[in-house]
Structure formats: structure tokens, C-alpha cells
């Protein structure tokens, strides 16, 4: 049997000899430099009082966060507030994605459905989800449903757009392959549409998730008694910059973790993407 070895390229990374320049040029070293500089400048801004008393030192933020873990704030510990925001996001995100993703697929697969939905969708699409807050509060009150509603709106648009485009952008020749092998329309959908649209759907979920975070914060700033948006608002009312900055840091960390979870899920569900995208 013929060997195919002559077609394989093996890329071996050559090791350069150890030197100081290597460390100075190393990615990790530069990461450390960048972060250290950031915290030093932050600390300097706080200590020098350029912004008056409205800036807290990084150290004070850390102490504030540590206190909040044990001492309840407005009846909830830090984790209570994290969970309050996360819960809203999970519910809204799940509803929005569950509605929008299949609808996007259906629109891409059936031009009649597309013709019915598209004009309505194009009407809603350019509107920022936060624009719905006032009417949502009028409709659903200041409780949980209005916040979840905003998140559903914020999730809906990117999810639908991505699953729709994910199917629309498939190379039509892939359908030809299935047809030449004796497959029917059902086989085309099963073997081409779904798997091909998967990465786009996941990209949509990622965008939706960050949109959901903006939405939950905005909703909590307007009316809430818990959540990370509420913490930052409380910090503003009480004039406690450490509380505001602490809230912001926690928001960043939690949003980052949820994004990682979706990325992880994509890696599990789309094994063929492994090693393709490497940032």
C-alpha cells in the first residue's frame, strides 16, 4: 500500500537557547508588566487624589470584597448578589436562546417562514434592548419578570441572526455531496445544516451572553434590591468608590467565567473546531 507520508508536514518548534532576551520578549512576562503597570497607575491615581475622594485603592477594593463575602449587604452576601444576577441571566438567556435559535434555523430553511418573520425582526433588530426597560417595568412590574424580559430581548437578536446566517452561509456544494450520495432533504438538514451552523450558533450564544450581562446590569440599575448592578448603584448612593469598583471587578470576573463555560461547551460539542481557532 502506498504511503502518504510525503504529504504530511511535521512542524516542530525549534528551541532557542536560554537567555535574558527570551524572558523579556516572553508573552507571560509582558502580561505581567502590563498588569503591574495598570495596578500601579490605578493606585497612584487613588493615592494622589487626582479624582478627589471618588477613587479607591486596589487594596481597599480587595478588603471591601473580602468583607462582603461574610457581612451581608442589603440582606445578601456577595455570593447572594452574584447568584441573583446570574440566575436572572440564566433564565433570560435560556428562554431567549431556546426561542431564537430554532426560529433562525427555520427562517433559513423555509423562505415562507423567513418572509413572515423577517420584517418584524428587522424592526426590532436595531433597537437596543435597554430601550425596552421602561415599557417592561410598566408591563411586568419592578420584580424579576421585567428583568428577565429585557435579557430575553437582548439574547434573542444575536441568537437568531447567528443561527440564520449560520445556515445561509453554508457552501451549497455540501448539499450536492449529500444528494450525490443518495440523500434527501432530511439528510441534508441532518448532515449539513445542523453541524455546519453549530459554530455560528455558538458565536451567537457568546454575543448573547455579553448582551445579557449588559441587560441585567441596566435592569438592576433601574430597579432592584439585589444583584451586581444593584451593588454598584448602592456604592454610588453611599459614595463608596470601593464598593462600586469591587462590584465592577466581580461583574468582569463572573461574565468572564460564564463566557468560558460557553466556550468549553462549544469545544465539547464541536470537536472538529479544536485546534482550528487558536487565539
Amino acid at each position: 500500500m502506498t504511503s502518504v507520508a510525503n504529504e504530511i508536514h511535521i512542524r516542530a518548534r525549534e528551541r532557542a537557547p536560554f537567555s535574558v532576551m527570551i524572558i523579556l520578549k516572553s508573552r507571560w512576562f509582558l502580561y505581567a508588566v502590563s498588569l503591574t503597570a495598570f495596578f500601579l497607575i490605578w493606585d497612584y491615581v487613588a493615592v494622589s487624589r487626582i479624582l478627589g475622594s471618588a477613587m479607591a485603592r486596589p487594596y481597599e477594593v480587595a478588603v471591601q470584597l473580602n468583607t462582603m463575602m461574610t457581612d451581608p449587604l442589603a440582606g445578601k452576601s456577595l455570593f447572594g448578589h452574584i447568584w441573583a444576577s446570574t440566575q436572572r441571566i440564566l433564565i433570560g438567556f435560556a428562554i431567549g436562546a431556546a426561542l431564537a435559535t430554532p426560529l433562525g434555523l427555520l427562517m433559513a430553511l423555509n423562505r415562507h417562514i423567513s418572509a413572515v418573520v423577517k420584517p418584524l425582526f428587522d424592526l426590532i433588530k436595531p433597537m437596543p434592548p435597554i430601550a425596552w426597560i421602561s415599557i417592561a417595568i410598566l408591563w411586568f412590574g419592578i420584580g424579576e419578570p421585567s428583568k428577565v424580559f429585557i435579557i430575553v430581548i437582548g439574547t434573542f437578536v444575536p441568537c437568531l441572526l447567528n443561527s440564520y446566517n449560520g445556515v445561509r452561509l453554508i457552501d451549497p456544494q455540501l448539499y450536492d455531496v449529500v444528494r450525490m450520495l443518495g440523500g434527501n432533504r432530511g439528510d441534508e438538514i441532518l448532515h449539513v445544516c445542523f453541524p455546519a451552523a453549530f459554530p455560528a450558533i455558538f458565536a451567537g450564544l457568546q454575543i448573547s451572553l455579553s448582551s445579557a450581562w449588559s441587560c441585567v446590569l441596566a435592569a438592576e440599575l433601574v430597579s432592584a434590591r439585589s444583584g451586581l448592578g444593584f451593588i454598584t448603584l448602592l456604592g454610588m448612593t453611599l459614595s463608596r468608590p470601593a464598593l462600586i469598583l469591587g462590584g465592577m471587578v466581580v461583574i468582569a470576573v463572573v461574565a468572564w467565567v460564564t463566557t468560558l463555560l460557553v466556550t468549553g461547551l462549544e469545544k465539547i460539542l464541536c470537536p472538529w473546531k479544536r485546534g482550528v481557532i487558536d487565539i
Partner: protein
Amino acid sequence: MANEDKIICEHISKEFIQKGKQRVRVLEDISLEVKQNEFLVILGPGQAGKSTLLRIIAGLETPTQGRVLVDGREVKGAGSDRGLVFQSYMLFPWKTVTGNVELGPKLRGMSNKERRKITQHYINLVGLQNFEKHYPHQLSGGMKQRVGIARAYANNPEVMLLDEPFGQLDAQTRYYMEKETTRIWETEKRTVIFVTNNIDEAIYLGDRIFSLKGKLPGRMHQVYPVGLPRPREHTDMKFLELRHQITEASDLTL
């Protein structure tokens, strides 16, 4: 059986409608016959309608005039009696080598055990053993097209249609793949229609070369029988003579 025509194209013309109403004629009055287990090469420069002709035979396009007969039956739509190999491979990136190759048998509802056997057989035939679990993005261009060939073969078609399958490969890999194509075809004979714009490739592979005139619409130019014994040598005197003859007659050298 051996001398009967497997594929007959009768006066095929094809027009596309571009930008709403502008009509573009890509093929004009093409008639050709392919014998059982014959290796026919369709040779022509770019924009001569070669791929369209192949897609019409595949049943993916309908001719504006004329018809295609396979085994005496008119072609109406795609079918698994013909296997198509694409210029741009068209592998499913989400399927492994095995997953790609076994799709045909799977769609036809073949049992697991039998499917495994056939899939492995064709993976071995194209020389991709030990790469069964690789995804297409992990393969080189030549290996990808091997998967494309194995996928078409695994569905056990009576006719293999190859649309400039090595157009994207570098010269060396291309030459190697041409050798492989001959080997695979000699191992498991099929009626083959192979589209190319490369004269050397045409002479190296074909029993017969059907050349198209350049520039749209594509029209029949000439038919050259290649009476050379296999395996062929690119430097063989007769090879070069035929090459010269085709080059002289065609407007390939633009």
C-alpha cells in the same frame, strides 16, 4: 456489455440566466458517449463549461436542451449511481475521515458491520490507513482529495465523475495523485469522466480525451484516443507527440 455505451450525452446545451434576465450560454450542442469502464477526460481551458457539463451528467444541473442517458435511462436529478469528486474537496469539516467516507453507505441504510468493512476498505485503497480519526483540517490537500475519492467510491457508484480534482494541489502532489488515480482505477474499474484543464494530466490518465473549445459557450473541439500502454511516462515519445498535437490544435496556451 463491455462495448456498450454507459453514458450518452445527446446535444446538450445549457443557458444560465444572470442578473435577472441576461442569458449566458455556457454549453452548445455537446454530444458524447462513454463506454463501460472507460476513462474519459474532458479537457478544456477555464470558462469552457467543463464543470457545468459534469454537473449536468451528475444531475445537479438540468440541460436547457438535450438529455443525458446513463444505462439508457434519462438522468433526472442527482443519484447514487454516479459519484462526484469536487475540485474544492467538499469534505464535511465536522466529520472524521471515516465519518466522511461512510456517509454514502449510511444514507443508504447499510448495516453497521458491513459499512465499517466497506469504509475501511476504501480508506485503505486510497492509502489513508491510520488517518481514520483525523478531521479534514488536519489533512494536507492531497490527503483531503483522497478522502473525497474514497467517499465517492464507498457508495459503490457505477460512474465516477471527477471535477478538476487536483486543481488545488502543487505540481508534485498532483503528479503523485495522478499515479494514484490510475492505480485506484485499475484496482477497481469504473466508468470515469475526469475534467481537467491540464493537457499532461489528460494524456496521462485518459483512454480518450474529449476537448472543448475555449471561451463560452463551450463547444466540442476534438476527440483524441490515447492509445498508450499504462503505466504511462510523461517523457515517452508518443506521449510528447500527442501533447504537441493537442497543444497545437487548442487555444489552451493563452
